[in-house]
């Protein structure tokens, strides 16, 4: 094995590198000094925040500063968010379940985004006959955006998880307008914010 072989390999590799055609622009940003016009506006230096963050983060000398700043920002953000949330919580009017409960219209919500505009069988949500049972007989199909009338709710049904990871044991007794059918709809298939009377 000779040095020739090493040179050969490096030359071969060097020739295999494709230099991107717009490399100059990407590396230098808009060219400075391209024009001799004294009055020409000086193009802005290319600004790559992520690149600078990365280089700060990987620079040994600046790393402690970078970490300290990042921790500070996170703590401030958490304190602010905590304050806002606790403020909201304290300002929110207390509600006693059932106090204002009444049958209400609910909008069906399908967490599967691709299904939200489709009215296909695959994207339908089942209204079932058995109270709180996932295995109940399908009595009607509803789709994202449909409005159903919720008469009452029970909280001891089968747990259902939607595609967004929301889980609930609540099932609504609903009637489907126009079809004269009634059945049970899992709570996770709505994003209800109103109190509904218990069944």
């Amino acid at each position, binding site marked *: *094995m000779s*040095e020739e*072989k*090493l*040179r050969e*390999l*490096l*030359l*071969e*590799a*060097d020739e*295999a*590198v494709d*230099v*991107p055609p717009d*490399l*100059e622009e*990407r*590396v*230098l940003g808009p*060219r*400075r*000094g*391209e024009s001799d016009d*004294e009055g020409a506006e*000086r193009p802005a230096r290319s600004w*790559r925040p992520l*690149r600078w963050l*990365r*280089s700060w983060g*990987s*620079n*040994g000398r600046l790393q402690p500063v970078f970490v300290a700043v990042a921790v500070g920002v996170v703590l401030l953000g958490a304190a602010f968010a905590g304050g806002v949330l606790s403020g909201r919580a304290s300002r929110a009017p207390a509600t006693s379940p059932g106090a204002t409960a009444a049958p209400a219209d609910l909008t069906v919500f399908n967490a599967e985004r691709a299904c939200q505009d489709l009215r296909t069988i695959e994207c339908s949500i089942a209204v079932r006959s058995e109270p709180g049972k996932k295995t109940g007989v399908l009595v009607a199909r509803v789709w994202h955006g449909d409005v159903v009338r919720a008469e009452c709710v029970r909280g001891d049904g089968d747990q259902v998880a939607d595609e967004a990871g929301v889980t609930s044991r609540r099932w609504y007794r609903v009637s489907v307008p126009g079809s004269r059918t009634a059945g049970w709809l899992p709570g996770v298939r709505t994003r209800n914010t109103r109190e509904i009377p218990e069944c």
Partner: protein
Amino acid sequence: METEGEFDRLFCDLLPRLYRRAVLLVGEAWAEDAVHEAYLKLRRRPERLMEHPAPYAYAFAAMTSVVRDHWRAGRRQVLVPQPAEPPGNDGGIAAREGLLDAGRLLSMLPTRQAAAVLLVDLDGYTIDEAAEILGVHRGTISRGRARALEKLRGQVHRRAVR
């Protein structure tokens, strides 16, 4: 302003060659960042590049320094996974096999030794010249090349076995 324009023009002349060396030193994914950081570093004192008798060598040394500071320190011992044996219709992998091999080979060396190998065996500098460019002892260059050759032997042997 005129100095900046001249500096940019000079850097652009060097850029393709620097970029190709950066690909060998840090890989394609990081090469652009490496030359960009080198550009920013050199631009702080443009006259140094412009007045240097060997601008390429000076820029290469700056890029090596940037690479050493930012990229290689934590990745020196990380081996690139061995790619699968290319099939007949490899979509261009075979054509780039030399590039992969060279990159793998250089990634096994400390940055300065890898840079020294490039200067001597690709750019044709003598060992003493490369040592001066990189600001290291000539023994560092010799050791780097010796290690590179050793690794290369290993690679060729493995390929022959396959």
